[in-house]
């Protein structure tokens, strides 16, 4: 897991997606071939760090590796460039969760494997 995490560190730390050189479509996660025009000429580009909640849930049954973190608030967010992204929503009272709420990206710990094990960091979102 450590190597596959390291490989994607810029994706996780800076929301580095990509953009089609042909038609300008942007993607996160990055794509290999532009879905809109089929171009294979894509360049890395950082996504905007703000957007709004399209839908969300409060997950009360977490998967292995996330024990102790429940409930986990997850949302699909439309970033200001139109790209949709899945992320955790933190530091927000549950009763303040709304479709349409403005959010910004924050850099957080995702999980840790054990006291002496790997710690994974990445993006989460918080309401503005």
């Amino acid at each position, binding site marked *: 897991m450590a190597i*596959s*995490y390291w490989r*994607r560190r810029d*994706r*996780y730390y800076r929301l580095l997606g990509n953009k089609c050189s042909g038609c300008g479509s942007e993607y996160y*996660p990055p794509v290999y071939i532009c*879905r809109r025009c089929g171009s294979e000429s894509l360049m890395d580009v950082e996504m905007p760090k703000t957007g709004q909640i*399209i*839908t*969300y*849930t*409060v*997950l*009360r*049954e*977490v*998967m*292995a*590796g*996330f*024990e102790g*973190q429940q409930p*986990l608030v*997850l*949302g*699909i967010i439309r970033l200001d460039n139109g790209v*949709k*992204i*899945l*992320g*955790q929503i933190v530091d927000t009272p549950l009763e303040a969760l709304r*479709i349409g709420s403005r959010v910004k990206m924050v850099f957080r710990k*995702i*999980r840790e494997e054990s006291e002496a094990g790997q710690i*994974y960091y*990445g993006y*989460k979102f918080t309401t503005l």
Partner: protein
Amino acid sequence: MGRVIVASVGYTKVGDHWDKSILDLAVEASKKALKPYSNIKPDVVIVANMFSGQSSKQEHLGALLASALNLVGIPAFKIEAACASGGVAFNVGYRMIRSGEADTALIVGVEKMRDLDVPEVSLALSMAESAEYTQFIGATFLSLNAMLARLYQETYNVTREELSAFPVIAHQNATTAEHAQFRKAINVDDVARSPLVSDPLRLLDCAPIGDGAAAILLTSDRVDEEDEVEVLSSKISTNIFSLYEREDMLTFSATKEAASKAFSEAGISLSDVDVLEIHDAFSVTAALSVEAMGFSKPGEGAKDAAAGVYSLKGRHPALTFGGLKGRGHPVGATGLYQIAELWLQLKGRGGLNQVDGCRIGVAQNIGGVDTTSVVTVLARR
């Protein structure tokens, strides 16, 4: 092109099989399917399974099962397409017979889920989504479907009671299905009072975790029977991989395309379908599935279910032995349980669950959130 016949089926009860291994289950279902045709030796064994490596530390299931069945020498392999593994394996067996590569095929779906605890099952299932961008942040299938359910209710003004209709139908039909995991009727109040697991989804919106195996013996038209069940078509389609990458999250476009092609190849229209098995892993999944296939208009799947359209005596009888919710959802086997149940219906062996006079049955089996979809059409001759 020769015809392809579902000659026989075999399956285990779905649920807790503490005393049986993944191979025990696969052999049990296989023997039941092979029993009526002791003269037939399959030309190929195809195993449908999603996560035997996770649950049983066992891969190479094709050769493992072929060897256990004393079928050494024939081709045998595993097909994996998440929860659509069963439907895809069926499709491959069907194509092998149609192409003349095989005369008979034994297709066996199996999943051992209960040896894992619930967080481990959630992790194993999440491997059907993006490991790097969905699983990494802790999003499970339950949470993705919950976000979809919220969007569905919000977009189409679907009430809690309407969303509960498919689970209620599933449980009602499962009460009289011997192989079902949950043979207990529930009502909309039970669903509304069940624990919130990922809002708006409650426990009774979700298919359970269970072990099971289902086997299908497919043959060319050598087997001569009057009421034989023929495969009219089987089509696979795929969608943009992750739910959140799709512009329109509420249209199951893989199901839409697979259904349209399958119905067209079978030469049938919606009104010809007498019995329907859909992939009701979650209440919202059932609703979006019937909408994508065209049985309900967009936004009206759950409302139609609440109005009785999909009940056993309704216009489109669905989930006739309980579906994924009531019969259970041993993921890699599910698509083949659906085929086995259509076979029971078309043979008139449905018992208390029989849909009278049915001739054409349709199964829809999906992997991921409609990421892979298989639609199969069977008919009684």
